[in-house]
């Protein structure tokens, strides 16, 4: 019996290249594997998050790692001619995948044999039920559509009742609904009655109706995961991406896996490096105006709208984008977009998150930059009829100008996340007033060590009870007209209660190099009071946070407005006080040095690491050991590597527990190097690696694509061990 190849069967990526989805993959495995619970799971997904790849990766693992449960993956398409065609494809795919799994031969799937051939290929134990399915499909023309559809959808359940376990991964089930709502209802009924564990994956705005199934969500990748995914894809496709370019792509495309992989693939096809903001935006513009990102958006836009309505829809989409503060009414949209069949274009655009409908208003999701750019480009080209070269040039210039602004906005958002997270942690804790009131903090505690501050503050009798917050969001969500002024993410509104009374805390982070002035404080109080008034908050509390606190005059203003003013230091201490973080988070500090080879440059590295280690309280002995190991690593990099750039790349990172060092060089890898016969003392050489291993706690030597990388770790200990004699 052929063994399944331990690589991709349905998936498009190697398992190691599936980034940021480890938890979801494990949950799906647990749900559908041999030990899984016999019930359904709704997988609700944002567009472009890589759902199909995740399901296919799960399928591949089940195919290879176990023999009890037949994995079955099927994606519903709106392109199927009718319900019967979809059902026929469904049952064929099931037979195909079942035969391939039972024979443990994934090549059968890629060969796509006919039904008769599949019947012959079926394992002897499966012959009967597979023959029955094949026969049922063959008699499709003689069968009325409804029973045929029902029989087809029931195929996995029937095989399961024969004692053969099956796990079904049904992708894009919203398409089943939009193909024919009765198909989706039939699907639900059939699986509700069967014992087969199933996953129904659909757009997160899709209404499943009543269904007995667990729920799981798949969001766009986080910024960090998006960065890792970009690096992984670029590495696989041999595209150079700088850190700055990577971050811009991750931010601009908001973690959309489809968009990001499309851009990197385009760079690979064009053989260009993504090494600057300009390079990113050039690629991006090509993708918006060519058939990269735009093709993906076309599918969601054109696929949702009858062709006769396309022009009018682009027109109103553009208006909606331009009127971003107020949006366009649903009625205005309905006048443009006719009802088409049982569902409207408005519903489909909402499903695919091209638009967002709330309170009778339609708006474009502001975070989807690519969608805005795509609609703008199509409007100018197709509605306004502008010259393509002109639109392209102006758009590219605009994208390039916008890039630094996008990153600035992102940095601000990231900084503000900690305020939201802290306010979510408010849960009626009683905390010292000095944690919030900068005046008290400045007079009594400023300048003391953290532990002393916490102790003295704890002994203080002046306390405040925090509210129990139940909903924390950006204040701009309450006052869209003032969104820009509120700097979007830097102002947070937290709804909570104290006792039975509801209260809203409005918190803002203010930039100020010195103690914040009275004028700036008054301005922010005015802004937040406006938000409170416009939003109808009857009881609210203002909380301003500034890096260096507030001047006495500013504090007087805050007192008048019943607000609090805190320094960033107080903010961090408050986090520690209410258990949101440790007092001293294990913050990692990183340093990078690039040195030329030769000229005793390793001494520069040794001096640098000495200073770094000393700041982290490593003992003198440990420091000398690290220095010597580092010198050896540098010598290793320099000697015989034939490095083309003659550089040694060094990274040092320190946290509360350890010092990590990475030394990399281009050129010959360690494994490729030949012994140097002309070296008279070579017999006693080669001690470098031995020394590194003896002097450091961990040493890893890797041959990378174009050189060698040595990673070393030294742990921080109260008492450093003595090096043993050889």
């Amino acid at each position, binding site marked *: 019996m052929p063994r399944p190849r331990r690589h991709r069967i349905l998936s498009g990526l190697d398992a190691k290249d599936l980034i940021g989805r480890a938890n979801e993959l494990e949950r799906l495995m647990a749900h559908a594997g041999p030990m899984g619970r016999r019930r359904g799971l709704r997988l609700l997904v944002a567009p472009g998050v890589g759902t199909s790849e995740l399901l296919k990766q799960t399928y591949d693992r089940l195919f290879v790692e176990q023999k009890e449960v037949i994995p079955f993956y099927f994606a519903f398409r709106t392109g199927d001619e009718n319900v019967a065609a979809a059902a026929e494809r469904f049952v064929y795919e099931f037979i195909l995948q079942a035969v391939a799994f039972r024979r443990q031969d994934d090549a059968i799937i890629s060969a796509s044999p006919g039904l008769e051939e599949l019947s012959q290929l079926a394992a002897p134990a499966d012959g009967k039920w597979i023959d029955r399915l094949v026969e049922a499909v063959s008699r499709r023309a003689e069968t009325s559509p409804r029973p045929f559809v029902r029989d087809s959808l029931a195929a996995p359940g029937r095989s399961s009742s024969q004692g053969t376990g099956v796990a079904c991964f049904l992708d894009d089930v919203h398409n089943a609904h939009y193909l024919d709502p009765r198909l989706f209802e039939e699907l639900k009924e059939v699986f509700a009655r069967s014992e087969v564990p199933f996953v129904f994956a659909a757009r997160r705005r899709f209404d499943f109706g009543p269904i007995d199934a667990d729920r799981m969500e798949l969001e766009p990748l986080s910024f960090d995961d998006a960065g890792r995914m970009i690096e992984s894809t670029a590495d696989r496709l041999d595209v150079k991406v700088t850190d700055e370019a990577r971050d811009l792509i991750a931010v601009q495309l908001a973690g959309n896996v489809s968009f990001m992989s499309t851009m990197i693939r385009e760079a690979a096809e064009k053989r260009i490096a993504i090494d600057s903001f300009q390079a990113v935006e050039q690629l991006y513009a090509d993708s918006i105006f060519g058939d990269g990102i735009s093709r993906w958006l076309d599918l969601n836009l054109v696929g949702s709208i009858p062709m006769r309505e396309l022009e009018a829809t682009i027109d109103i989409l553009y208006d909606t984008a331009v009127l971003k503060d107020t949006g366009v009414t649903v009625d205005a949209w309905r006048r443009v977009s006719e009802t088409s069949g049982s569902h409207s274009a408005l519903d489909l655009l909402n499903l695919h998150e091209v638009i967002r409908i709330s309170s009778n208003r339609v708006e474009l999701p502001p975070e989807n930059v690519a969608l805005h750019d795509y609609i703008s480009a199509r409007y100018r080209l197709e509605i306004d009829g502008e010259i393509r070269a002109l639109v392209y040039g102006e758009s590219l210039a605009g994208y390039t100008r916008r890039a630094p602004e996008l990153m600035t906005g992102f940095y601000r958002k990231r900084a503000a996340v900690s305020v939201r997270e802290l306010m979510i942690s408010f849960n009626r804790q009683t905390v010292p007033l000095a944690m919030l009131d900068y005046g008290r903090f400045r007079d009594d505690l400023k300048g003391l060590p953290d532990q002393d501050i916490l102790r003295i503050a704890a002994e203080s009798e002046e306390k405040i009870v925090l509210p129990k917050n139940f909903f924390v969001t950006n204040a701009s969500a309450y006052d869209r007209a003032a969104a820009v002024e509120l700097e979007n993410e830097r102002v947070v509104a937290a709804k909570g209660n104290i006792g039975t009374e509801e209260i809203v805390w409005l918190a803002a982070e203010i930039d100020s190099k010195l103690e914040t002035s009275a004028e700036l404080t008054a301005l922010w109080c005015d802004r937040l009071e406006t938000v409170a008034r416009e939003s109808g908050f009857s009881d609210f509390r203002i909380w301003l946070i500034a890096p260096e606190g507030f001047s006495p005059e500013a504090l007087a203003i805050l007192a008048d407005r019943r607000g609090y003013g805190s320094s960033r230091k107080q903010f961090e201490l408050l986090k520690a006080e209410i258990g949101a973080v440790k007092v001293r988070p294990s913050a990692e500090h990183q340093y990078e040095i690039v040195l030329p080879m030769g000229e005793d440059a390793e*001494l520069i590295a040794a001096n640098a690491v000495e200073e770094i280690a000393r700041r982290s309280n490593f003992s003198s002995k440990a420091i*000398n050991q690290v220095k*010597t190991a580092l010198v050896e690593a540098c010598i290793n990099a320099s000697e015989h590597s034939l490095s083309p750039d003659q550089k040694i790349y060094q990274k040092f990172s320190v946290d509360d527990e350890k010092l990590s060092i990475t030394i990399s060089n281009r050129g010959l890898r360690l494994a490729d190097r030949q012994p140097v016969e002309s070296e008279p*003392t070579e017999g*006693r050489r080669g*001690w470098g690696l031995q020394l590194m291993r*003896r002097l450091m706690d961990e040493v890893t030597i890797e041959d990378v694509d174009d050189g060698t990388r040595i990673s070393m770790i030294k742990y921080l200990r109260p008492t450093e061990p003595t090096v043993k*004699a050889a």
Partner: protein
Amino acid sequence: VVQRTLKLGHRASRSKQKGTTYVTSERELDASVSTEGDTAIVYADDYLNKLAGEKIERECRRRLSEGCRRLIVNFSRTEIVNSIGVSILLGVIDSAANNGAKVVFSQVKEDTIELFDMLGLTRHVTIQN
């Protein structure tokens, strides 16, 4: 006492030598050797690398050929050593043994002794601090 200053190292010396020191157009000289009877004292640089090791080796060989039977390598200024420098010192020890001479390492810092220990150097040489 005959004193002779060697040209050692590419870097500027952190401390001046005892005895005569001269400066070439490119490098400051930072190691020296002295002899007394059949004993030669060679001063190692603050960084014992390949170049510094080779200079020590050359000077030791020269002193051995002149009849010295006791070589003292003084490490008072040596802050850091690398494996290449150490491997060259082993060559010095071999040469001395072949000439019936004894090698003594003096004023070696504790961390350096441990390193010599790790590489087996202390089995062949006397440490005198």
